[in-house]
């Protein structure tokens, strides 16, 4: 039987946040700077947020769907001032999990006994995790009974090589071991990063499957899109965390693979997933992205300088379901995919020309014909104190400039264009998670409700960071009301 060409649709998306102030001390920038200046440790600890403050933080509520992105335009900054008792752990698009429970979750997804948790703490978090709607008896049994704290402390330096797992107040409640004495790809910090990816992606996909009423065994293929490196000394980036997550989510009929494209990974992966469905190879695919633990506290110096709380204290995950046309879900226009070819050059104008103008012109669309553009959506309150600017606004200005260059808007209409077609940034600075896909939940909701016709999701990737090329990268697609 010949495969039939079909229209892929995005059936759902869910996000997952974990508030992990204690893990900020394992972020790449904090680790490096604290090795040079030990006084920073106390300064950071005194600026960590409570779970209640992270929960109430408006950008997090936008991320989880309780607020619209445009709401932030009307809220005076700093946004972290806003306190409310009304914020809910569960938003329409997912939950924000407290730190203690997330440490238990790390233990649950660890199948190699790398993580040891204190026995008293294990008992406490078992009680906290038992009522969780997405955790099973098998998950809770994975917690075990824990280890005596004295035994855990003996694993830590100077006597041992394990990394401590601490709460925000500095209490040691566990540790993570290396998996090999001579393998730099299996050190405790690398394994912690990878397990955190596995845990956050697992919870995002479990949330998606449960709330979109999709049976796990209906998933044919899972594509990972994160920036972690899962492997060992001989295959440092071997990958396929996707299949490990599929296993955790009970996707017994699924296989998977990982797409590696820096921040652009999720959009690349969505296009590939759409193509797999569109060509009749699979019926239901899931694109997942775990967190970036290395980016916890990345801008901490700017936050301390301005007496801000450490705003990069959450880990984020995403899961997206792409399937066959059901007549309701928004459609992926695979005939309007934008890409950044090697020969295009890395100037911003060239990148946006390829990602935006080329696919639109192919169908006679103008840049203003796209109602909303979802680009790099990093929270500016995180980046501006560190001198990194307002990343979404920078990108929207380039987009508006391109429209003016094409004589599709007046140069004096740039501000109006940005207000109409853009949005404030709200995503945690979790690398690939912040690239376009944070708006997917809002877009799906508005398209199903009839208040949005189309959105272009465009993401960029910083390939030059890996020192293999000076190039950037990018990918885009149009999502349209069904």
């Amino acid at each position: 039987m010949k495969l039939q060409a079909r229209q892929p649709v995005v059936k759902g998306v869910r996000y997952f946040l974990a508030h992990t102030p204690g893990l900020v001390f394992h972020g790449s920038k904090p680790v490096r700077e604290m090795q040079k200046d030990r006084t920073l440790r106390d300064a950071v600890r005194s600026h960590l947020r409570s779970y209640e403050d992270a929960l109430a933080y408006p950008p997090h509520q936008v991320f989880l769907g309780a607020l619209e992105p445009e709401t932030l335009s009307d809220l005076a900054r700093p946004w972290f001032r806003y306190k409310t008792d009304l914020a809910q752990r569960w938003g329409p698009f997912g939950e924000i999990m407290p730190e203690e429970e997330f440490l238990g979750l790390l233990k649950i997804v660890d199948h190699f006994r790398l993580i040891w948790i204190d026995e008293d703490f294990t008992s406490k978090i078992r009680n906290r995790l038992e009522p969780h709607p997405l955790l099973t008896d098998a998950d809770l049994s994975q917690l075990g009974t824990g280890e005596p704290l004295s035994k855990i402390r003996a694993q830590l330096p100077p006597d041992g090589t394990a990394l401590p797992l601490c709460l925000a107040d500095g209490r040691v409640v566990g540790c993570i071991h290396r998996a090999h004495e001579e393998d730099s790809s299996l050190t405790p910090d690398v394994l912690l990063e990878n397990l955190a990816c596995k845990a956050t992606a697992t919870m995002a996909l479990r949330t998606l499957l449960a709330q979109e009423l999709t049976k796990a065994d209906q998933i044919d293929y899972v594509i990972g899109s994160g920036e972690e490196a899962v492997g060992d000394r001989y295959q440092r980036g071997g990958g396929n965390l996707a299949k490990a997550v599929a296993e955790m989510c009970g996707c017994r009929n699924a296989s998977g693979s990982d797409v590696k494209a820096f921040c652009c990974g999720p959009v690349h992966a969505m296009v590939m997933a759409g193509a797999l469905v569109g060509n009749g190879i699979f019926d239901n695919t899931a694109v997942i992205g775990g967190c970036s633990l290395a980016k916890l506290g990345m801008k901490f110096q700017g936050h301390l300088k301005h007496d801000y709380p450490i705003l990069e204290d959450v880990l984020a995950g995403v899961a997206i379901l792409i399937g066959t046309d059901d007549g309701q879900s928004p459609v992926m226009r695979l005939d309007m995919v934008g890409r950044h070819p090697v020969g295009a050059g890395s100037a911003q104008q060239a990148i946006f020309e390829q990602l935006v103008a080329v696919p639109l012109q192919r169908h006679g669309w103008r840049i203003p014909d796209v109602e909303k553009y979802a680009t790099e959506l990093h929270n500016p309150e995180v980046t501006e104190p560190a001198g990194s600017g307002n990343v979404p606004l920078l990108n929207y200005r380039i987009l508006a400039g391109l429209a003016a260059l094409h004589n599709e808007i007046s140069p004096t209409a740039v501000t109006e264009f940005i207000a109409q077609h853009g949005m404030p940034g709200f995503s945690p600075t979790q690398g690939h998670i912040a690239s376009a896909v944070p708006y997917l939940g809002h877009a799906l909701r508005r398209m199903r409700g009839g208040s949005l016709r189309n959105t272009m999701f465009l993401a960029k990737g910083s390939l030059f960071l890996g020192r293999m090329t000076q190039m950037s990268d990018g990918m885009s697609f149009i999502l349209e009301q069904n």
Partner: protein
Amino acid sequence: MNLQGKRVIALGERDGVPGPAIAACARSAGASVVLEMTHCFV
């Protein structure tokens, strides 16, 4: 600014002007680019 014969370090930014673009401008002005890098701050 006259860059003719000068040595230039081109430090760019992904969401601003990337390093290769700065380097191309500098070379067109007669400079010798000794280092070309692009940073990504997110």
